[in-house]
């Protein structure tokens, strides 16, 4: 089984309302029973309620896998970077510190790293990952590129990120403005001193005539 190539993950942190639905749903996933792998991070808890849902971005050249001394992290042919292979992981924590997105988590009691694997039990048979199934604002969307482009006329996906001098390409996309000049990538480290901005958000989630965002994807 493999995740179908035409199905992609689209993350739009600016739509996140911090409801924690994704966190609860994530812990229901069968590949990491009872543990939520998604991070719902506060951008700056002291001054803002802005939240950032962070899932594994499934890098094409995963830093976590490259720095793993036990060679425990594998990327399957469908581009999904799997959780650490249990027999091999020696719980060194290199992956936790190396991931540019801050995704992997180390469970010291189990001597094991676990991370988001895009709900492989679901996505590998064409179903949406748990978080995308429940996200009420579609900050987490799983579907085809055509679907996301049709329901987000102002946005476009990008899967290239910059961290200092390093550019990372991922299987998961983040939504950026479609308006020209279109950003070629998301420069994460350029936000080193950014602060959350006060904004007004109106989310056109429920709107007749649009595709049903909660429908299972047909393959």
């Amino acid at each position, binding site marked *: *089984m493999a995740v179908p190539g035409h199905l992609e993950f689209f993350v739009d*942190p*600016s*739509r996140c309302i911090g409801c924690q639905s994704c966190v609860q749903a994530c812990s229901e996933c*069968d*590949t*990491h029973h009872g543990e939520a792998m998604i991070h719902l*991070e506060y*951008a*700056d808890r002291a001054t803002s309620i*802005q939240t*950032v849902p*962070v899932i594994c971005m499934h890098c094409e050249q995963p*830093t976590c896998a490259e*720095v793993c*001394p*036990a060679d425990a992290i594998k990327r399957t042919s469908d581009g999904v970077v799997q*959780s650490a292979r249990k*027999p*091999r992981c*020696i*719980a*060194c924590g*290199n992956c*936790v*510190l*190396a991931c540019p997105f*801050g995704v992997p988590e180390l469970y010291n*009691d*189990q*001597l*094991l790293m676990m991370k988001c*694997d895009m709900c*492989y*039990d679901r996505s590998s048979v064409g179903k949406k990952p748990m978080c995308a199934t429940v996200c009420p604002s579609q900050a987490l969307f799983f579907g085809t590129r055509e679907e996301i482009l049709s*329901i*987000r*006329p*102002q*946005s476009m996906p990008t899967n290239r990120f*910059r961290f*200092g*001098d390093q550019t990372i390409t991922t299987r998961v996309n983040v*939504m950026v*403005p479609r*308006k020209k000049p279109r*950003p070629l990538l*998301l420069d*994460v*480290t*350029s*936000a*080193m*001193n950014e602060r*959350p*901005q006060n*904004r007004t958000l109106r*989310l*056109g989630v429920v*709107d007749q005539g649009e595709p049903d965002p909660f429908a299972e994807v047909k393959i």
Partner: protein
Amino acid sequence: MAHERVRAIVVGVIVAGCLAVLIVLGSRSLTHFDAALVGYTFATLFAAFGIAYRYAMWLQRPPSRMYWRRGWQVLVSSAALQRIASGIRRAVVDVAGNRFIFQRGFLRGAAHMSIMWGCILAAAITFPLVWGWIHFETMPGHLNTYRTVVFGFPAGEFQIGGILSFLIFHGLVWASILVLAGVMLAFRRRMIDHGAAATQQFGEDVLPLVLLCAISITGMMLTVSYTWMRGYAYGFLAILHAITVIFTLLWLPFGKFFHIFQRPAQLGVALYKEEAEQAGQAKCKRCKKPYASAAVVRDLTTVERELGFRYEMTALGPKSADKEGKGTGKNRSSRADHYQQICPPCRRALFGLAQSALWSQAIEPERETREPGAA
């Protein structure tokens, strides 16, 4: 890569050669070597070569090499003496007792422990027998007494027909029962757990269980044949058993079983992490909070550079710093020169902040009319 392969081949040849020498020495110039087991012997020699080859290749990867070096530095330092108690505790509780696997689930722990100790028992019996390091001989004048000879030296006697001899001569049966119990539990999980079913691979997860099952069953059939069936089909069963064992030995270096040799590295890693924790914490350049030991962060930065990653933040020059300092009276990241100096929670926050900054720039002229991300 060619240079690394040559080095690994040399290591493999040395290890296999040492084992061959030990076989000759231990069997007293092959005097006690059982020629019927020669197939097993060559399979173990190949396995020794393969395991050493793969181990050497593995240790030449930058992150593995770094932890290997750091682990030994701690082990040969004075700190090792201070941590000897914790090292022994980890070896007993985690390695021998499989505590960390029981933490993942009782049945998973029970399955692994059963398989592990079954395999250890079987290996402890068969390998010395195959290599001629151990054999039994009848005591002259005492036909009911067996003498155990190890490396050519007498190492104890026991009565034939006693409980001890029954337990010893059926050691592989007990090992098979342990292995089969564990394999059944493991197969059960792989059949009913959706997560395991989705992520498992035949070669990596299922084949090892099939091989262990085949070895155990064919081995027990040998006992059944000579105990209750007057040796019926014993020759066929012996060949069948040999095929399953030899295939497993040949496959040992390449598949899941390699973790048997790789996994003890966790003890060295744990010792190094303990030592590094004592040496001081690295503080995040953004939030100023400690997030990891400084030594581990430093080593990881080195490893990333060796692997060709360029997380240096040279692009964030004075212009960026000046801009970001406005309105806050301070620049929180002015000293960050490598992304590794940023803690994971701050990385996650940066991800969201960078995206929202793009939207802020895009909608600035029309903030009043449209909202970011809205359909």
